[in-house]
Structures are given as C-alpha cells and as structure tokens.
C-alpha cells in the first residue's frame, strides 16, 4: 500500500458500506418491477464503468471498445447455460476468465498504439465480434428457464435479489479498484497516464502495467456483461457488443469523475435512471432518447468540467485536508532499503564505456561514431552547440531510441537494445531537457514512482523516496502536487526521482536550463553533494561557467561527432571547440 493509504482506504470502505446498505434498504421498498430493474441496472453499469475506469481512467488508455468484454461475458453466460446447462454462478467466472484471455489477445497487438489510434482500434474489436456473432447465427439468444431449479440457475421470482447480487458485484469491483488505486499498480498507471516516457525512464514497465490493467478491466467488464445477460434474459449482438454499450462505460465514468473509484458509481446513479426513465416515458415517440441523453451529458461535462462531477464537487466544497508530510527523520536514521547491491563486476574498467555509437534520422547523422567513457565517481560534462546530438545520445543510451551502430556498456554489461525501463533497472537514472513530471501527483508520489521502478517494497520505497527528497532538499514540499512547483523545484524533484531508483549513473539533460543565477547555484550545490556521496554523473549543459565548476572532464559534440575530450581547461582552449561554438570569424579575430 502507498503512503497514507490506510486511512484513505478505511474512509472509502466505510463510505462504500454505508452507500450499499442505504441503497439496498431503499430498494427493498420499491415494488414496481420496472423501477426494480433500473435499481439492478445502476450497479451493473457502475461496475462496467469501474472496469473501464481501471484501464482508461487511471491508465489513460482511452478505450472505445469495452463492449468487447461486456459482450463476451454476456454471451459466455448465455451460451453456457444453453449448450452445457452450466449454472450462471459458474458461467460468470468462466466469462471472467474468457474476458481476461480476450484482454490479453486484444492488448498484445493494440498496446503498440497510443492515444487516439488506441481508442479507435479498440472500437474495431466489438464491432468485428458483433458481425461474427451475427454470422454465427446468434442474432437473438434467450436464456432458457429452469423453474424447478431456480437457485442453481440464478433465477429468482423476487427481483430484489438481483439488486442485491448486483450491489455485491459492484462492491467487489469497487474494492478491487480501491486496492489498485492505493497500491503501486495504481501509481504506475497514473504515472503512465501523465507521462509515459518519464514513467519508463523511472523504471516502470509501462507495457506490462497497461496489460495488467486491461486484463483486470476485461475480467470485470465480463462479469458486468454476464450478470446483465442473466437479468435481461435476452442477448443480441447489438445490445451487448454495440457502440452504445461501450459508450455507456465511457459516459458514466467521465460524467461521474475520471480516475476516481466513485466516478462511475456517481455517473451511473445519475445517468442510468435518467436515461431509462426517459426511454420508458418517451421511447415510443422518441426512440433514441437514451443515446441522446448520454451524448448531451458527455458533451456538457467535457466542456464544463472535464474531470467529471466528483472532482469538481470535491475541489469546490471539500478542500482536501493537507496531506500528511512524510516522517521528518534524519535520512541516516531511516532504514536503508535492501537493494540488491550492484557489485562492480569489471575490476577497474570505466563505469560507462561508449564505443563508436551512431544514430541517424533519415540522412541526418544525429550521433556519429561517438566514443567516450565515464569512470566511477566522475562528473562528465557533455557540451556542444544546439543540434550537436547531445540529447539524442542520451536517448540512445537509455533506450528511448535505438542505435544504428556501436556499443555502450555499463560496467561491462551491454545497455543497447534494452527497453528504457530495463536500462533504468541496470542503474541508469535520467532526467529530461523539458521536465517530465507527473503534474497531478504529489511530489512524494512522483519520487516513489522512481523507487517502485527499482523494484523496492512499499516501505522501502517510501523510505527511499524520503531519502532522495532530503538529498535534494525538497522534503518540506513532499505533499504538494508537482504541478505547483517552481521550475527549480521541478528540476530537483526529477533529480530525486532518478536518485530514488538508487542509480549508479545519472544522465542529466540540461538540468540547469531556464534557471536564474542563484537557482543555478543551489542546484549545483545539490549536485556537488550527490557527487560527494559517490554518484557518477553525465550532464548535458550549456551554461559554461556552471560546467567549469562542476565537471571533471568534458566531451564536446558537434554535428554528432566528438570534437574534443579532456579536462575543462584544455577543452575550452581548444581551437576547434571555439570554432564550433563561436565560429571561424571569432577565432580569426582572436588569433590576429
């Protein structure tokens, strides 16, 4: 569990219990069978929304095709009753398994896509299945009745029992969602949603977490669909694989509040009765009124409060209590995380050895046969004019880009060809030219992402993150959302996130960019301290005076090639370096 998860969970679970009991109590007094049906459908759609929320809310992978899972659950339950006489009590878990497998089959190719391409591709699956179902002759399948054996076939004369089961299923879904929200699972998803590249660079295996969230989500969606089929008794491809089904998950969640476990519940509680009642009252004259209501609701919420009701209400009327600051102990007093100590394998070789590394974009040789090495405990400054290939070099080193040729070894281990998060786990921390934070997460969580990325347990991760924040001097800001930090603080936070993964080598990309002189000095002090603790650093920087103070050695890049290497003094005197930076004319005048 995350820092501060205990009380948060307790509060939410209490709320959940109270809401369910009240809901059931109200449901017991409703006798109109149509309203009873609505009372059963609200939790079903809420559950489906919760399922969608896990993938698309927390993880930010917008899916327009969640009907795939809903429909798979519905058809599994119905067909297994028809063909095998299987009880829905077993059919629903079976649907859950098939839903999970479908999630793997769908996620495997589709997670190669991002953003709107992902959303559109997800749409294609349920629609394709829809046509296949029609082709297979399952246009309209009804659930056979088993009067004599009602309990076994989840068949009750008392409709309120369905409401009870629906609520129990929803409670199950909400609990799963709460657990995810309060664990490294949820933090990883939030980090991926806010900045996937930064999450990868902090050691988070984005692909894996996204896949996990899709599987959980698919299983939950199948449960909702399976139970829906049992309640409605008739399944048609359109009613379970159709666009309106996918849309309903999107709409209730976005309306209620995205990335909050309560969002889908609130959304369903408002929209489902509204749409169903309108459909019942006006459906004869206005046959599509349900869809129109959902359409209007979603446009309105997107334009007026894009995060949904829950967040808007909470931000306006319930100012969140100040988050607890992290335990303010001296970092040395905290238990040292049990890292697998990365023992140096090569005897006295350099920590980082880069040999004739090249990377081209089309005809442009951004990095061309670059070789250099970094010894343990050293600060290597990488300088060069704009477009010299410095950032590309870092991107190749930490796996954001692939190399065309050459090799790079960290303590003898090859780095190239690995994924970004794997390079991070080898012990390479990275910061970015433009700060990549997770703006809506508190500073501490931002840094914990780095510690989780290194595979630490929850307790250790918190301690490690606190230590890293102390190291950079941000510990008093740990509860603030990263979006509220100043530029300097963001730079330090990014540094802390990299440090939290206990790296052996830091790749810092223009950490001082955009800082004033004094701020610059503060950051330099922090870097000096980090280095004094034995860290090895590669830093890209433009500010020459800072680099002269900080770096032990320079590598100068120009047009992708290494122009010079050596001690700062010698390098700045080098004529080719001066020429690259200041031009031939300047050099000629100086020599005159």
């Amino acid at each position, binding site marked *: 569990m995350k820092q501060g998860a205990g009380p948060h969970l307790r509060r939410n679970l209490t709320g959940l219990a109270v809401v369910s009991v009240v809901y059931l109590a109200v449901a017991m007094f409703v006798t109109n069978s149509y309203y009873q049906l609505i009372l059963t459908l609200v939790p079903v759609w809420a559950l489906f929304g919760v399922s969608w929320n896990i993938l698309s809310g927390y993880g930010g992978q*917008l899916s*327009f095709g969640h009907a795939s899972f809903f429909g798979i659950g519905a058809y599994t339950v119905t067909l297994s009753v028809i063909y095998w006489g299987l009880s829905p009590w077993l059919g629903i878990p079976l649907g859950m398994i098939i839903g999970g497998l479908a999630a793997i089959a769908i996620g495997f*190719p*589709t997670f*190669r*896509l*991002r*953003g*709107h*391409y992902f*959303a*559109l*591709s997800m*749409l*294609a*699956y349920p*629609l*394709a299945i829809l*046509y*296949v179902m*029609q*082709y297979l002759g399952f246009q309209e399948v009804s659930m056979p009745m088993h009067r004599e054996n009602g309990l076994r076939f989840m068949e009750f004369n008392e409709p309120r029992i369905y409401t009870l089961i629906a609520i129990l299923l929803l409670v199950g879904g909400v609990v799963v969602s709460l657990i995810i929200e309060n664990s490294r699972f949820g933090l990883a998803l939030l980090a991926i949603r*806010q*900045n996937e*590249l930064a999450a990868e660079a902090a050691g988070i295996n984005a692909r894996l977490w996204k896949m996990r969230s899709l599987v959980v989500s698919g299983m939950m969606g199948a449960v909702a669909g399976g139970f829906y089929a049992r309640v409605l008794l008739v399944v048609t491809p359109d009613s379970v694989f159709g*666009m*309106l089904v996918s*849309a309903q998950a*999107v709409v209730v969640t*976005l309306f209620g509040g995205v990335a909050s476990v309560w969002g889908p519940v609130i959304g369903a509680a408002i929209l489902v009765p509204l749409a169903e009642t309108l459909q019942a009252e006006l459906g004869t004259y*206005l*046959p*599509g*009124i*349900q*869809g*129109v209501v*959902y*359409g*209007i*609701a*979603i*446009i309105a919420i*997107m*334009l007026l409060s*894009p995060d949904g009701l829950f967040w808007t209400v909470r931000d306006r009327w319930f100012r969140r209590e100040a988050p607890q600051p992290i335990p303010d102990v001296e970092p040395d007093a905290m238990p040292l995380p049990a890292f697998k100590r990365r023992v140096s394998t090569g005897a006295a070789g350099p920590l980082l050895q880069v040999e004739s590394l090249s990377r081209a974009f089309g005809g442009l040789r951004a990095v061309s046969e670059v070789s250099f090495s970094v010894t343990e405990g050293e600060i290597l400054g990488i300088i060069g004019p704009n477009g010299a290939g410095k*950032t590309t070099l*870092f*991107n190749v080193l930490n796996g*954001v*880009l692939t190399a065309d040729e050459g090799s790079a070894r960290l303590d003898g281990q090859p780095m190239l060809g690995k994924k970004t998060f794997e390079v991070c786990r080898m012990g390479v921390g990275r910061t*970015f*030219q*433009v700060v990549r934070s997770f703006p809506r997460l508190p500073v501490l969580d931002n840094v914990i992402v780095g510690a989780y990325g290194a595979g630490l347990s929850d307790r250790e991760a918190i301690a490690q993150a606190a230590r890293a924040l102390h190291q950079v001097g941000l510990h008093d800001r740990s509860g603030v959302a990263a979006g509220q930090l100043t530029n300097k603080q963001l730079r330090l936070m990014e540094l802390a996130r990299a440090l939290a993964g206990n790296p052996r080598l830091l790749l810092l*990309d223009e950490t001082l960019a955009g800082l004033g002189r004094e701020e610059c000095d503060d950051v330099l002090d922090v870097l000096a301290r980090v280095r004094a603790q034995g860290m090895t650093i590669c830093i890209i920087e433009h500010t020459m005076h800072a680099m002269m103070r900080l770096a032990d050695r320079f590598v100068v890049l120009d047009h992708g090639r290494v122009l010079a290497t050596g001690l700062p003094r010698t390098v700045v005197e080098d004529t080719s370096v001066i020429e690259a930076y200041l031009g031939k004319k300047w050099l000629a005048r100086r020599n005159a």
Partner: protein
Amino acid sequence: MDLEILVENVLNAVTAGITIGCIYGLMCIGLGLIFGIMRIVNFAQGELLMLGMFASFYLVSEGRVLSFLGPYWGPFIGAMCAAPLLFTGGALLHKFLISRVSGLRTVGSLDEGHFGQLVVTLGISLILQNGGQILFGSTPVAVRTPLSSEAFLIGPVYHGATVFLNKAKLVAFFVAVLAAVVLYVTLEYTRLGKALRAAADNPTAATYMGIDVDRAYRIAFGLGCGITAVAGGLMATYISFTPFVGFDYVIIMYSGVVLGGMGSIFGAFWGGVTVGFVQQFSALILPPQLQNAAIFVVFLMIVLLRPQGLFGRSAERA
C-alpha cells in the same frame, strides 16, 4: 467453367472496386481534411456521412424540393446539394463545440486535445445517431433511382464471363471523381486553400502571418463535413441506410486516411480507393455478413503495420 466464373467474379470485383473505391476516396478526403490535416480526431464523421445520405434522401424524394429533377438527375444533384447543407452544419458544429477542444486552444497540451476531441465527438455521434432515429426512424430507406437496377454489360470478355457496370455506381463514380478533382485544385492552388493548409499545419505560425485561424478551421471543418456528405449522398443511390449506418464507414474512413498517409488529400483519396478494393475482393472469399468484420481487421492491420513515425509513437521529443 470454373475458371470462367472466377474470371467473371474477379473482373466484377475490379470494376466495383474502382467505382466504389473512388466514392470511398471522396469520403476519405473529408476525413483527411479534418483528421489528416487539422489533426482533429472526429469520431462523428460517420454520422456526417449518414446525414449526407438523409439530406439527399429528403431533398429528392417524392414531393420534396428537388423531386422535379426526376429519378435520373435528381439523386446525384441531391447528393451535391448535401454539401452546402453539411458545410454549414459542420461550420456551426466547429464554432460551438469542436473549436473548444481543438486548434489554438489545445496547442501545446499533452495530447494535443485528442482526449477532449474523442469524447466530444463521441457525444456528437451519439446525439446524431439516436437523434437521427427520432427524426428519420429506424426503417432502412434508399434514394430511389432506376439507374441502381440497370447495368451496362461488357463482354462476354472471356468465354461467357461478363462485366456488369451498375449505372448508379458509375454515375456516382464520375461525380465523386469530379468533386475530388475540384477540391484538390481548390486546396492546392487558391489563396483560400493555402490559408487553410497553413492554418492546419501550424496554427500559431499562421496566426502570426495574419491568417484568421479560427475562421480557417471553421471553413476547413465545414468542407470536411460537406465532402463526406456528398459521398454519403452518392452512396445513398445504391445502398439502403438507417441512422446507424455511420459506424461501418467511420472505420473505413480512418483506414483510408491512415493508409494514404496523414496530411495528404491525395493520399486520403488513394487510401479510400484501396480500402474499396480490399472490400470488394474480400467479397470473393468471405460470406457477406463477414465483409464488415473484414474491414475492421483490415483497419487493425493498417494501424498496426504502418511504420511508427506516423502514429505519434516515439515521435515525441525526450
């Protein structure tokens, strides 16, 4: 004998592929403007196609404004008349809704506003589909022209193999190609076209160059809607449709635009032609019910197999 049937089927698939493909091409140009060039993810493009169909249907049906044109000319002129209607509708849609989640407002935001666009256009799509059901009913209708049941016969080309050219599709094909050419020339060579492309390509820079970007966007979005609507009107002469017809085609449109390469009008057209071809050839081997499923599979293959650069993957700067 078998060979004869095969030859006949293949030849007919080729001709149908060309005629239907070009109509798809026109339809894809509409989305190409909106998605390919302006980079607005419009989920409701299929519904605009549907509105084009119904616009044409209501214009030329018996007793309506354009019914005096008769069953031969009427449907095709009706299809073209759908353009100004949907252009206006599209421009209004952009002014009141789309502009709030796209263009200058979302420059520099993390996902360029795609999330908001997807959600808002999903809402528009739901309203148009279901609202369409309220207004137009859900019984399939078609724009009737005697041409749709007449065909030119070519051949026999190989023993008994004959090529059938449906007259409605043939006329629709010519109209589609004509519309595509006119549009292409307008966008490539006129001042308006240049302003539109500049605004779409880099809204901030275009603003500094004195282009009214909001207006340019509105026009471009309206054009995209109008063009797709013309294609819809043309299709209405040979298929029957309901307000829910859009979904089958929105996927075809995205396939075409992505396949043809983002940002190119010409590419979008050829993408549409290709998808039309694939669809007609899939009809040779697949049962009719699965043809639509095949389109989705084709779409998935296209987005998955295209080189990464086009898809916003790894294109971000670290």
